[in-house]
């Protein structure tokens, strides 16, 4: 005998609201990463020096992490219920925050702050 499972109800408005709410959080994180990159580049320019390749790599990765985290969560939750979308975005945001802090620690060690 075959069991027919009912398809989950589609709520495009709720999904969009969840995606937009989390987008704000990810954008805040992105803003911090971009301002960090610009601040260190400006600081190096004031000292008439160039940021090292390591610094560019770590600060650039910090910019990419929130973008990749958000897009990956939205893609993986495509076609799923709003609850699953929210859950995946929560985990993506948490992982993104952890990775950002790790990159910050690498950067501080790399430039000799810690």
């Amino acid at each position: 005998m075959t069991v027919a499972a009912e398809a989950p109800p589609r709520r495009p408005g709720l999904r969009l609201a969840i995606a937009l709410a989390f987008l704000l959080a990810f954008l805040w994180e992105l803003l911090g990463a971009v301002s960090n990159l610009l601040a260190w580049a400006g600081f190096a320019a004031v000292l008439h020096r160039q940021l090292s390749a390591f610094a560019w790599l770590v600060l650039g990765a910090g910019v990419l992490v929130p973008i990749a985290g958000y897009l990956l969560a939205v893609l993986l939750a495509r076609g799923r219920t709003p609850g699953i979308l929210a859950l995946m975005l929560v985990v993506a945001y948490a992982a993104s925050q952890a990775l950002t802090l790790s990159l910050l620690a690498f950067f501080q060690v790399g430039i000799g702050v810690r």
Partner: protein
Amino acid sequence: MADPETEDEALTWAGDDQEIARPVRQAPVATTRESGAPTLVALGVLGGIAVLESIGWLRGVLSATLEATLQQGAGPLGAVAFGVNLLGRVAAVAAPILWFVLAARRIRTPSRRFAWLVLGAVLLLPWPALMGLL
């Protein structure tokens, strides 16, 4: 050639007065979730790693990063910024456990589930705390 009425009878259960059901989607089969001892041990080990990583993140977050975001006299915007940053730190502490719970409960294919669990354990290593210990 077969008699059409005989074919219809062969595809109908007794007492079922409706036509053949056309399923939209197959329900998940229970056998796709492994529940053997090795699987449970691996899940336990990876869950323990997730808890240890969260403890490491708590230690790393509490050590140096929080006070830098709280500024005296920064106004409402400063308070909001501090709140959002605090939320981010809390999220970072919870990240390993959240990742573990999501992957262990939502991914049904065993190989894919363990791939995601191992990926999470590697990605979410608490480097700030580990570097502080070195």
